[in-house]
């Protein structure tokens, strides 16, 4: 068994937490785990990717191009940026909305949201684009996007862990007073996949 997951987003969206959660869920199953994270300057609103690897025998922590099984995208353009990591036919669960970078406000670069969504929809595997902002409102906290996506992920077939195991891994990283909010966020993520 081998599962490689790429998580892409913007610094500050909680991708490090998401990769730690997935790794600890894998550890709970006795699997070999690795994560690789971007820490440093890029965390200031820059592009960031986290990578998680679960398997019987692993070497490095970074996933080769075209080898990831699943791509989780916390931001639209960053999801597109990470597509080359995904294997042909790999699944994508991503936010449909944009965080427009300062460079676009200043007219130095451009952001065509429609074209990004279109490109993702044309990918050969299963593609689910979520209205993450709306879902986060439903969960009752603007910063729960990462847990919502983990909830959505938990509905995919062929994962080594049960949804409940993933939820427990999430909660093990969350402080006491935010446990209920995150349980809700996980559930909102799961439900979003029923309609998607």
């Amino acid at each position: 068994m081998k599962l490689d997951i790429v998580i892409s987003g913007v610094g500050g969206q909680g991708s490090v937490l998401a990769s730690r959660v997935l790794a600890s869920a894998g550890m709970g199953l006795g699997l070999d785990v690795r994560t690789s994270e971007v820490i440093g300057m890029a965390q200031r609103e820059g592009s960031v990717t986290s990578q998680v690897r679960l398997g019987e025998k692993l070497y490095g922590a970074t996933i080769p191009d075209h080898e990831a099984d699943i791509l989780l995208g916390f931001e639209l353009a960053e999801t597109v940026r990470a597509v080359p990591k995904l294997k042909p036919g790999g699944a994508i669960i991503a936010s449909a909305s944009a965080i427009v970078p300062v460079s676009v406000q200043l007219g130095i670069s451009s952001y065509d949201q429609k074209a990004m969504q279109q490109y993702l929809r044309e990918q050969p595997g299963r593609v689910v684009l979520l209205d993450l902002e709306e879902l986060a409102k439903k969960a009752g906290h603007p910063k729960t996007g990462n847990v919502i996506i983990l909830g959505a992920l938990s509905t995919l077939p062929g994962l080594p862990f049960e949804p409940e195991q993933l939820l427990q891994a999430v909660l093990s990283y969350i402080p006491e007073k935010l446990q209920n909010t995150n349980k809700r966020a996980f559930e909102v993520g799961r439900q979003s996949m029923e309609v998607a």
Partner: protein
Amino acid sequence: MTLKLLMGNEAIAYGAVEAGVQVASAYPGTPSSEILSTLAGLALEKGFYAEWSVNEKVALEVAAGAAYAGARALAAMKQVGLNVASDPLMSLAYIGVKGGLVLVVADDPGPHSSQTEQDTRLFARFAKLPVLDPATPREAKEMTRYAFELSEKLLLPVILRPTTRTCHACQDVEIQDTTAVPQPVSGFQRSPNWVIFPNLSARKHVWLNGQQEVARESFENSPFNQLTINEQSDVGIIACGVSYNYVMEALQLTGLEASVLKIGTPYPLPAGPVLQLLQHAKKILVVEEQEPVVEDQVIALAWKTRSTAQISGKYDRLVAREGELNVNKVRAILENFCGRQPHSIEAAVPPELPLRTPVLCAGCSHRASFYILKEAARGKDTLFAGDIGCYTLGAMPPLNTTDTCLCMGASVSIAAGLSRVEPHRQQVAFLGDSTFFHSGIPGLINAVHNGANITLVILDNSTTAMTGHQPHPGLNRTAMGPTDQSINIARMVEACGVEFVRVADPFDLKAALQVAKDALAFAGPAVVIMQRECVAQINKGRHRRINPDLCTECGACIDELGCPAIGKPAGQPEILENCFGCGFCNQVCPVGAIEEV
């Protein structure tokens, strides 16, 4: 034993704790910072001492002092930090240590967050010190424990050199439940051998050269080096550190056959396993990041033993000397080396992607300081010498207030140097508070003593923000807890002999602008200390909004500040969800359209 998900840097810290470290010191720097922050978190409970030192030179000297007295000590830094610590390091190799001293230096091929891609393995060779190169967090922990033993055996500091991909990777790592009992410290014993006179150096140099062979022998049977002979293949691959992972995975992906020698002790390179491989394989490929440290030693061994094996790597440009390796690159290298058709995947061309470089946080006071200095210098021909920290982002549009950036602490001296050649231009230098203490003070003293006409702006945000908000000597906390021994920057600057010293609040545009103008008008070195806490450290202020009835859509707020909390999601400027409430944009808006919510 407990299995725990640990980042490489945390694993190194746990390794040190298990080895019974007694003194740990560091100056922060990506990708090394979490080593000391983890140690600091464990220090009180486990009963050892940890400090954030003022800079890397001091960190290494503190660790050396502890090791002189027989204690186990660790110093940690990033690769360019070793440049700062190189003076004590080079001499320490001659003097040696008594207690084990492990120097962890994190390299950053890429580079991801560094000024250079320098290779600490090469530095180790230059300093004649053994170096260990971990491939994974687990190995990093084992190597840390071993490094203390080796240091005590050789009486030399031992360097552990992880790279970003080990420092910032997590793995399931076993940690011991019982705390190591610190060894009784024998104490410092007076001897002329601690005093580095030239005649001692002459003797010690002979000893140091001899220790190279002792270290090499220690590595001959090291579990960190592993040779796997493949009888089916005449290809041999030697891979050092994280490159080993890439080689193993590329072999799996391509199905190519090869004997593999994993190297975890790149200097001094043990001869035994290399010679064994040279006997078996006709074609050898050395895969390592950065400099040909292992390759050079392999070539020397092959030459000495008259081996006819073909040795490939950096010198026939198969393996790049710049940047990081990864599985894809190593796969292409292997395919090329073995004469295989390269593997390629056709992919649809993605739409043009927006540029998303890092920016100063919404509400960062540095943005205000840069705006203020630019305004104060308006109409004057001004050069802005920048420095290293979050505030290096002042180089980005629309702020454009960083014309130079070299290394920590250089801004003030670069400005002084520029002023000698271009006295007709205004010279402004920026320094962060942590950078001021790290290496800015000598440059300032130099500017005062030699009468350089510059304006130094110290961006005092009460933290070392860039590397994860570590404390520095200006604050009332240390790595281990609160302190009342904080050093006042303004008084320090006065003590350096600066006549013009003013403290300003960058969020008070009018007042701070006046201070900046006065500083620029002052003949001789002038210092402005811009004081505001880093927003990542404090609670949010009141959210702002733009009153659409007043806004003329002139775009000044966006074009002048480049704040990530101001955008145009619906066409006209709007304050976004991530506003911090610093209130600076209201002071920049020419019509006062930005108000508190």
